[in-house]
């Protein structure tokens, strides 16, 4: 069977199309999904292309089911994924908490829309907290926040590898803007870039007869004793902390001598970067720090930059979700932290320039 993408090629497409291509290129074998805007076209492109490459799709009755069927696909040993947004992401937290507890490497693409509740179908960064820490758990998950279509492609492929390598549920946190706008990027066959895809393995039906020539797989998420649960969670915590340095990713722009440090993630970092460019032309010492992984968070790296700056400004299309993350990781840093919050609204370069000037 031919590969979905041979080598590498330049394309101009929407983010949702990018995700479908990336999942195909990554060798995702099955997608489980339920309609919700602005995520729909991931399914639309997937259902058009998947059968040509022997891949499968199941449209479920809701996002709870999309998430749980996805865990089933992963347990069968397949690279399986799902995608959602907003209230769908809320429902998705139940299966994702099971994935967290049972170390099931699901991949979930989140296309953030306005919240809370139904809100808008357009855009926000209001699913940051939920994607990082949703469910009744500790947030042992990996969250990549993407800013460009290129990143959307790169990190969707990477999400499958990170998930299967470390066996924590992995999320690509996009948004409605990225879903719907068109942008140019390179799409590629991972092999063409020497990216080796981590092998997916079944958790059940692994060959042999259970009880005869192997032990049965008895997978559970329920524990009887406090001590039992404590051990399991502490194992997860130790493992998560051990691997965090290998997973953490961030981007710095003009940070070396920055007096004012703009912290933004996802698509908003484009406005922050644009503002830095503009202000640097006027000789202003402004820099931008973009965490790519929100879980685990690039704490040491941000702390170092924040300490060297005179002012930190957190900029986000939410009312303090990135801000909470930043503050918790900058504990002990005396640099003042200011905020620019536009919940559910896009943020332009001009706005960021204007806001930053207040601190120059």
């Amino acid at each position: 069977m031919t590969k979905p993408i041979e080598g590498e090629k330049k394309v101009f497409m929407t983010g949702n199309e990018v995700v479908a291509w990336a999942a195909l290129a990554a060798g995702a074998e099955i997608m489980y999904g339920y309609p919700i805007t602005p995520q729909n076209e991931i399914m639309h492109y997937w259902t058009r292309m998947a059968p040509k490459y022997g891949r499968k799709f199941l449209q479920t009755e809701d996002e709870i089911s999309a998430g749980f069927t996805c865990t089933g696909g992963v347990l069968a040993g397949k690279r399986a994924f799902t995608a959602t947004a907003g209230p769908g992401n809320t429902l998705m937290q139940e299966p994702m908490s099971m994935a967290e507890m049972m170390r099931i490497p699901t991949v979930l693409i989140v296309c953030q829309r306005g919240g809370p509740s139904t809100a808008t179908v357009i855009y926000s960064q209001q699913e940051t907290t939920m994607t990082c820490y949703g469910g009744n758990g500790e947030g042992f998950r990996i969250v990549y926040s993407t800013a460009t279509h290129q990143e959307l492609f790169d990190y969707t492929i990477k999400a499958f590898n990170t998930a299967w390598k470390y066996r924590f549920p992995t999320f690509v946190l996009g948004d409605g803007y990225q879903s719907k706008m068109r942008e140019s990027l390179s799409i590629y066959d991972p092999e063409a870039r020497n990216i080796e895809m981590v092998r997916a393995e079944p958790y059940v039906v692994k060959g042999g007869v259970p009880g005869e020539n192997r032990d049965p797989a008895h997978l559970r998420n329920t524990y009887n004793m406090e001590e039992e649960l404590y051990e399991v969670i502490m194992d997860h915590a130790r493992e998560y902390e051990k691997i965090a340095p290998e997973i953490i990713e961030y981007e710095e722009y003009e940070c070396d001598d920055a007096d004012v440090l703009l912290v933004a993630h996802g698509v908003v970092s484009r406005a922050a970067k644009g503002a830095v460019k503009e202000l640097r032309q006027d000789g202003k010492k402004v820099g931008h720090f973009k965490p790519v992984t929100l879980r685990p968070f690039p704490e040491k790296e941000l702390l170092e930059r924040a300490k060297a700056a005179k002012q930190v400004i957190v900029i986000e299309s939410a009312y303090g979700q990135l801000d909470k993350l930043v503050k918790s990781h900058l504990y002990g840093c005396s640099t003042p932290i200011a905020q620019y919050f536009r919940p559910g609204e896009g943020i332009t370069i001009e706005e960021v320039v204007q806001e930053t000037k207040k601190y120059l």
Partner: protein
Amino acid sequence: MSVQPQMPKSWRSETKPHKFCPGCGHPLILKALGEVIDELNIADRTVFGCDIGCSLLAWDFFNVDTIQTHHGRTTPVIVGLRRANENVIGIAYMGDGGGYAIGSQHLVNSAARDEKVFVLLANNTQYGMTGGQMAPTTLPGQKTETSPYGRDTELTGPPVQGPEMVAAISGENAYVARGTVGNVRQLKKFIKKAIQNVMEGRGFAFVEALSLCPTNWRTNAEDTWKFVEKDMATYFKVGEIKVPGEKKEG
């Protein structure tokens, strides 16, 4: 020398005695299931999913790969698994709360989509694990922790007819039956036909088993059997409801 009780080969002896209450119906259902797994020789490709509620106590019951899931979510986990690996014989095991209340959308839609999985549901007319609350299957007038004066059908509706509902919405090739622990031989036959239905890729399979809960019913042995064989049988008709291309029994 101690004499070992007779157990299906697919039962995991290391985890016996099991964790269910004395007099519970689950072990009878699981014995029938275990014997069918033995007879069909499918332990190597069966995945047993168990729900939350008393059914979760079966998480290490079998020498069969097992996934214990969330309350009501066993059906989608098994469906997702079977979709990804068609060689798997997927069994979703749950109680009446898991299947008819919190997970009803999954049961309804899996049946409607004719998923090739087998859902086995124990109906003991209440929530056992949480201490005996009213369930969709609680009989009219039956006292539970949340219907302490007896179930008022004016306020809470009549007992849910699960297999009848599944039969109404599933395709031609679905297998649907209601058995009872009062007739394990017949229940086993239903379970076998259900598994064969999914093994042969024919269609969805659903068996409700009328079960026992003397702990929460607060009944002695005699009244326990009277409840399942007389009281429950008044509302829940035992027998095959839908058999692809065959004559029904019972």
